[in-house]
């Protein structure tokens, strides 16, 4: 969680230094989901993420130097500066993302079918926000996964907001998880600010899918501490409300409290871990910002993977 927070904070710093363009979405406040899911992910499992993807990428084991370099649009980035912060692709860890809401789930369905056909016990995790759960892609992917009992886990990060639109105002159901019945899927619900609970529930979801039980919808309720994107004027909620969420639901603070109350760690040791991660990211960011930008001469490279005769 701490590494994920430090990573996104480095992105905010890179944005301040104008190294990132377009609408940057960070996951600050939602790290318990990333950290919780990391424990149950196997290398061959696939994760297909969203516009808010950095902590998911780290959870899947994407190299953080290459990821940060991509987010900062560098030539040595994960995707040679072509993808940027919303579109990281890493075939070596079976990680990908999309900037189109809901579009992650049909892609996860494809991974799930491939795993099934090859007789692998790998699982495809498709991630969406609550907003994405209203899309046609969500429904269609789950119809097919349910009918074919495919090893797919749909992780719904329900932070109650899709930009300004509140979940309660547009959802026909109180939760997303309860829609699972319609797809013969297992529906699970978890407090997405509690990293231990996420780890347990997510492991249960993965076990179910891995043991041919069919698809799972796991809904993790959480809170987005910052704007939808950096620069969001957030006219739809007050400063006080945001402050209250930060003070009440910070997954890192909550976990620290648990560790110190149980007598497992002293505050000093935890401070040191956080300081260490921050320092490491600071070094990494300055190294990344020294890397060269992509050469415009190669701008047409990679349109096709195969050489196209002139």
């Amino acid at each position, binding site marked *: 969680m701490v590494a994920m927070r430090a990573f996104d904070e480095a992105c905010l710093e890179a944005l301040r230094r104008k190294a990132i363009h*377009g609408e940057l979405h960070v996951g600050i406040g939602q790290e318990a989901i990333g950290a919780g899911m990391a424990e149950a992910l196997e290398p061959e499992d696939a994760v297909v993420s969203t516009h808010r993807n950095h902590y998911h990428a780290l959870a899947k084991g994407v190299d953080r130097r290459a990821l940060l370099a991509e987010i900062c649009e560098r030539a040595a980035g994960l995707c040679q500066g072509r993808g940027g912060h919303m579109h990281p692709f890493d075939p070596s860890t079976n990680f990908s993302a999309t900037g189109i809401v809901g579009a992650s789930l049909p892609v996860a369905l494809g991974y799930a079918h491939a795993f099934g056909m090859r007789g692998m016990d790998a699982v495809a995790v498709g991630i969406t926000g609550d907003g994405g759960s209203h899309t046609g892609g969500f429904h269609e992917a789950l119809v097919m996964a349910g009918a074919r009992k495919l090893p797919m886990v749909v992780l719904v990060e329900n932070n109650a907001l899709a930009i*300004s639109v509140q979940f309660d105002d547009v959802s026909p159901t109180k939760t997303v998880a309860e829609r699972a019945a319609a797809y013969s899927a297992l529906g699970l619900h978890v407090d997405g600010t509690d990293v231990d609970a996420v780890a347990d529930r997510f492991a249960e979801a993965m076990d179910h899918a891995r043991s041919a039980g069919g698809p799972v919808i796991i809904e993790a309720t959480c809170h987005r501490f910052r704007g939808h994107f950096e620069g969001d004027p957030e006219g739809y909620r007050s400063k006080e409300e945001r402050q209250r969420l930060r003070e009440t639901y910070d997954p890192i603070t909550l976990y620290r409290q648990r560790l110190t109350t149980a007598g497992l760690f002293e505050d000093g040791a935890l401070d040191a871990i956080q300081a260490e991660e921050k320092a490491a990211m600071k070094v990494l960011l300055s190294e990344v910002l020294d890397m060269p930008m992509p050469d415009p001469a190669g701008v047409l490279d990679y349109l096709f993977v195969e050489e196209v005769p002139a």
Partner: protein
Amino acid sequence: MTAATRVNDRLAMPLPATISEAIALEMERDPTILCIGEDIGRAGGVFGATRGLQERFGEDRVMDAPIAEMGFTGMGVGLAQAGMRPLIEIMFVDFVGVCLEQMYNAAAKVPYMSGGRQRMPVVFKTAGGCIGSAAQHSQCLWGLFAHLPGFKVVAPCSPHDHKGLMAAALRSDDPVVFIEHKALLLKKGRDFRHHPDVPDGAYTLPIGRAAVVRRGSDITLATLSATVEHALSAAEDLAEEGVSVEVIDLRSVVPLDTATVAESAGRTGRLLVVDEDYLSFGLSAELSMRVLEMLGFSALTQVERLAVPDVPIPAALTLEKAVVPGPEMIADRLRRMAKGS
């Protein structure tokens, strides 16, 4: 209020405020108009182009939709068939992938398939264009809509044109794809090089009429949307170098005002079409060809086009700059054309 303060207020107004004013004036006139889209109600639109409308007209007429574009785009078709005049907002034009079905198989074809019996007064309002947001949030796509018969396709530049063409779109009985440009939506009236003045009250401009926004005698440059601003800037540079460029704002892709461009190109003898959309199978070739067909193939000494080479928009700004026609790229091309005479 004096005329001077009124003009100053207008110049300080962000373009989205002018757009929402246009929509409000039409909604006042016509109770069958309603707006549906993501974040258009409580938030007033991600750029503010529907700000204040929900407070004024209520949640039924200005509705925040879930991320269910296929659903609410088709809803627009049904509303229109039921006698309403919906404005459907697709936040960014890149997202039409998920609802194109209802747009091109229904909205665009129903008037024809019904033998003209079914009117289709829908406005699909959306934002396109490059502001550093990479491949899935930067496209223009007006060429795509223009290729599919049955849409009127409008992409204005000036605040004046946005207001008049939005009103015209809402009064049209045909489906209109109204494509705003993200870079323009971030500007205020005074940032525009041409026509920042906006009359009070409702007015319409005819859809399908281009505007000559700068007079010139050496080269005709036709373009639209944010590129008009880049073209005017390039034309200013070229003027200092002794080359006189006439700049035409097409304002719509369908209908395409070939006559205005042909009249100009016939005088200058040289035509450059600049397009922020993809190069191949698009506006630049279509317009060049129509002008040649109108004037005859030997009427012009030079016909050139400058558009995004056929590649997705890259994330890195160094790469984006290399593919999206900006003021320098346009000025360079004009210089080369001027020398080539």
